[in-house]
C-alpha cells in the first residue's frame, strides 16, 4: 500500500464502489464534531454514528458537542499518514455532573458517521472548563494515524 494512498484515505480521494457518486464532490472540508459520553455508554470501534443516547448533558453543553478544527491537512512521514486537530477540543463554562469518560469524534456533514472513540479517566465539571489537548501532529503521536 502506498504512503500517498494513506493520506488519500483521510481526504476521501478514492471511491471503490461502483454504485454511485463519491460522497465528496465539493472543495470544502466536512464538519467534524466531538461529543462527550457518560461512563455507562458503550462506545467501541463498532460504533457507527453519533447518538444522543448516554451523551452528557448539563448547563452550557450543547447536544452533539463542539466543532473540531482540522486546520492542518493530512500528511505523512515515510510510511505513516497522520492527522490531528489543530486546536484543543474545549467545552467552556459547563456543568457536567454525571461522570463521563469518552469522546466520540464524528463527521456531522456525512450523516454523523463515527470517526474514532477516545477514552480517559472519568471526570465531572462544575462551572468550569473541560479540554482535550492535542498531541503533536506527527507520525508517532498524531491523533489519527494510518500506518
Amino acid at each position, binding site marked *: 500500500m502506498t504512503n500517498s494512498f494513506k493520506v488519500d484515505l483521510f481526504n476521501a480521494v478514492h471511491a471503490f464502489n461502483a454504485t454511485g457518486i463519491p460522497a465528496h464532490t465539493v472543495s470544502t472540508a466536512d464538519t467534524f464534531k466531538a461529543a462527550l459520553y457518560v461512563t455507562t455508554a458503550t462506545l467501541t470501534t463498532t460504533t457507527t454514528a453519533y447518538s444522543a443516547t448516554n451523551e452528557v448533558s448539563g448547563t452550557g453543553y450543547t447536544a452533539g458537542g463542539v466543532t473540531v478544527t482540522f486546520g492542518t491537512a493530512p500528511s505523512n512521514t515515510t510510511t505513516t499518514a497522520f492527522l490531528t486537530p489543530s486546536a484543543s477540543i474545549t467545552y467552556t463554562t459547563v456543568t457536567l455532573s454525571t461522570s463521563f469518560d469518552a469522546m466520540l469524534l464524528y463527521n456531522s456533514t456525512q450523516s454523523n458517521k463515527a470517526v474514532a472513540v477516545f477514552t480517559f479517566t472519568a*471526570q465531572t465539571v*462544575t462551572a468550569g472548563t473541560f*479540554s482535550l489537548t492535542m*498531541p503533536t501532529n506527527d507520525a508517532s*503521536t498524531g491523533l*489519527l*494515524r*494510518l500506518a
Partner: protein
Amino acid sequence: MDESLLEKREGTIDNDNETTTWVEYWLEGELVHRSAHVQLKRAVVSFGETAEF
C-alpha cells in the same frame, strides 16, 4: 465573594493513556468550580496491509 474563603484542591492523573490535571474550588464545603484538562497519549492507529500474490 471573598476569595480567601475558597479552598483550592488540584491533582494530576498520569498513566499510559493520558495526563490529566484537575482543579477544584470549594466554598464552605460546597464544590463551586471544577475544571479538567486531558492530554491524550494514545492515538488511534490503523494499519494498512496488502497481500502478495
